[in-house]
């Protein structure tokens, strides 16, 4: 295996006007690249870039990447429904929304990601997964791995070790999948469990599955070995050299426009704002002065913003003017704890300086913010 580091070569076959003869014209059939970055946003941006700019007619691409801890939701999913956002924030685990469909996955350095880029016509997921299975079996013949018709890879007919998703554009397509080598299963199961109750939505739901690391089956396996085995198999099937070219997703000269793509993937509008419309119908149990108040809350959230908000408070618990100010402020603002905190604390500045009122207000608002 030869790892080649790229320097000043404009080698990417893309729609850019590259006057020099590039070495891609000598490599035929396929190209294997690996990211030097562990940042989920940068790596997703590379996928976008290749999808938008590379001409895959002559040459297919295999992209290998790994991420530091992150939860990645599918294009049409609801993060509140899919994961424990509070835990994510606490543990500083990133949240990303990818452009392909499918369900939610947890990434860390013990998980490897493979993206198969082809033209739209040559899009074929089963073939790709069979390639992965073949590579695994070549590495460890005793492994009981097979591909299901749901495009999962199962170990011992029971444990899911790989999930799949795909994105199709006008002329190109990509199919990517995960592969659990040595991921932290404890963190995985705790972050992928949402405590949210009373959420109704048409977002794509994830199908929970029993997972296992390949490392548990065979402790001699490492992520590097798996990456190498898969690259070797890909090289063989595409009749190319077994070279893995390293790319740096921060390199703007190599990948012009990549920093914009990376930025876009991190915006609130993309990660949260692309959530399909959903509604919340829940009950806040607020403990106030030795009694428990049951407060029903109903909200409609569209594009990540509160469209409609109804809080069923006991009469006169808050002055009616203040209640309507609260609802007015929340309507149209992001379903986001930070923004809501700013708004409600501002409103507190404008109402009478009454300790009782302030403590009621804080109690209600803190409960509301906990939902987000």
């Amino acid at each position, binding site marked *: 295996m030869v790892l080649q580091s790229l320097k000043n070569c404009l080698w990417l*076959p*893309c*729609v*850019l*006007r*590259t006057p020099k003869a590039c070495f*891609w*014209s000598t490599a035929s059939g396929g190209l294997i690249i690996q990211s030097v970055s562990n940042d989920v946003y940068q790596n997703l941006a590379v996928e976008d870039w290749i999808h*938008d*700019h590379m*001409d895959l007619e*002559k040459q297919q691409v295999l992209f290998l990447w790994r991420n530091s801890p992150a939860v990645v939701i599918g*294009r*049409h999913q609801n993060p509140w429904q899919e994961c424990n956002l509070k835990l994510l*924030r606490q543990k500083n685990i990133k949240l990303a929304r990818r*452009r*392909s*469909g*499918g*369900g939610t996955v947890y990434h860390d350095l013990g998980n490897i990601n493979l993206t198969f880029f082809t033209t*739209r016509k040559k899009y*074929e*997921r089963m073939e790709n997964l069979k390639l992965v299975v073949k590579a695994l079996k070549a590495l460890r013949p005793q492994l009981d791995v097979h591909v299901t018709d749901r*495009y999962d890879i199962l170990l011992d007919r029971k444990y899911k070790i790989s999930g799949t*998703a*795909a*994105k*199709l*554009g*006008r002329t190109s397509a990509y*199919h990517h999948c995960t592969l659990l080598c040595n991921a932290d299963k404890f963190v995985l199961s705790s972050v992928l469990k949402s405590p949210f109750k009373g959420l109704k939505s*048409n977002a*794509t739901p994830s199908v929970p599955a029993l997972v296992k690391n390949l490392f548990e089956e065979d402790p001699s396996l490492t992520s590097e070995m798996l990456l190498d085995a898969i690259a070797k198999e890909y090289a063989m099937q595409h009749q190319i050299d077994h070279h893995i070219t390293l790319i740096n997703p921060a390199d703007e000269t190599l990948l012009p426009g990549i920093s914009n793509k990376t930025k876009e993937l991190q915006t609130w509008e993309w990660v949260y704002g*692309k959530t*399909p*419309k959903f509604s919340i119908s829940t009950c806040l149990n607020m403990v106030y002065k030795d009694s428990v108040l049951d407060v029903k809350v109903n909200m409609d959230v569209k594009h990540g*913003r509160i469209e409609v908000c109804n809080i069923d408070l006991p009469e006169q618990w808050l002055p009616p003017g203040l209640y309507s100010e609260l609802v007015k*402020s929340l309507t*149209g*603002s*992001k379903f986001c*704890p*930070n*923004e809501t*905190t*700013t*708004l*409600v*604390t*501002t*409103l*507190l*500045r*404008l109402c*009478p*300086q009454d300790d009782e009122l302030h403590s009621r207000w*804080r109690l209600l*608002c*803190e409960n509301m*913010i906990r939902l987000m």
Partner: protein
Amino acid sequence: VCIHRVRSCSSVRFIKSKYVCVFDKSALKFSHQQRLFRTSAVSCGQIVQFKLSDIGEGITEVTVKEWYIKEGDSVSQFDSICEVQSDKASVTITSRYDGIIRKLHYSIDDIAFVGKPLVDIEIDASKGVASEEDVVETPPMSHEEHTHQEIKGHKTLATPAVRRLAMENNIKLSEVVGTGKDNRILKEDILNYLAKQTGAILPPSPKAEIVPPQRRAEAVPAAPKDKARKIPVPAPRPIAFAGKDKTEPVTGFQKAMVKTMSAALKIPHFGYSDEIDLTQLVQLREELKPLAEMRGVKLSFMPFFIKAASLGLLQYPILNASLDENCQNVTYKASHNIGVAMDTEQGLIVPNVKNVQVCSVFDIAVELNRLQSLGSAGQLGTSDLTGGTFTLSNIGTIGGTYAKPVILPPEVAIGALGKIQVLPRFNSKGEVVKAQIMNVSWSADHRIIDGATMARFSNLWKSYLENPASMLLDLK
């Protein structure tokens, strides 16, 4: 004369444009027909049903997840129309035609079928019915040109209208720089190319129009002297500026600011500014910084400013008070909860350090560190953001000297600190020395605070900072 057909779908919608007509024989069967007389000779558009093309892998149905366009929008070929999902695959459907969207056949979350119509697009009849194939091939060129294309390995993307324009002007698309999406060649690119070839006068780019003012200034004085010669006045050329106004609703942090500042308007502000010599404080901080770092805390100037303010408030408690709504009562707050204005990515927030009157400078530094890291992570809690009684805004970290800060209700005073500059000043011996100078600008509520009080408070605060050792005497 054109026949205007009233749609039979449940949401009856009149097509707004006057020049639409439908070559649909079934329209004649309708009893409701209106004849619209047109004065302009515009060709009728043809409504084409854009069918959902094959997804691959034998998939026959998909779920519509997001529309990128709505009825009435105009689209160009290759623009994204919608996003559909099928079995873990998300597919972007792009338009095959240029035209106007007339009907969406599905709503969000509906099941759409491959081979069935997805949208109706009205295309310009003069262009003819677009072929079913994606128009990606280059127009007929010499064989040499064609191989040149292949070597480059890129496809020239251009709509049929653009290709026609190129062909009519004998332009090779391969020589035109495309500035559209996916490096697509747009009509403007052809026009620019033409301009360069023929030297035709086209609306110049905005950059070219910015004539350096100096040149004009030099030209003008010459004119009065020489009346015989006329200076040619440049003819006003139309500046092509493609920018558009953008309107968006005020939400989030901006909304909070609007509310706060509108309430602050009711407070009659007066300002008081002064200059502080921080030479000794700068030196002190240099000595203490490593000590704080050993304890894992970053020490800035703010903890000193905050503590000095609290010591001052002990002598002038009216500055730490609150006036009720009817201006009937003044409440002197016991706690000095000093707010620190923070600039985050989302906007301005003002968390406060609680009970500064019982905190040491180091305690304040620790708390500031905590608030700053929470603030930048967007994780400040409600208790951090409420209960403030007095505020300091260190705008000097960004820049500036004097400011006119706005009081944050229900407080009655606020101070804005400018940047620390090294300036020459006279010392007691009359010599010019280097001094570290910072300006402070106070604003106070003139309903209950008078200028003298503010001035005395400021002097006290200034004296603590100019001679930090004096703080030791009054520290609690």
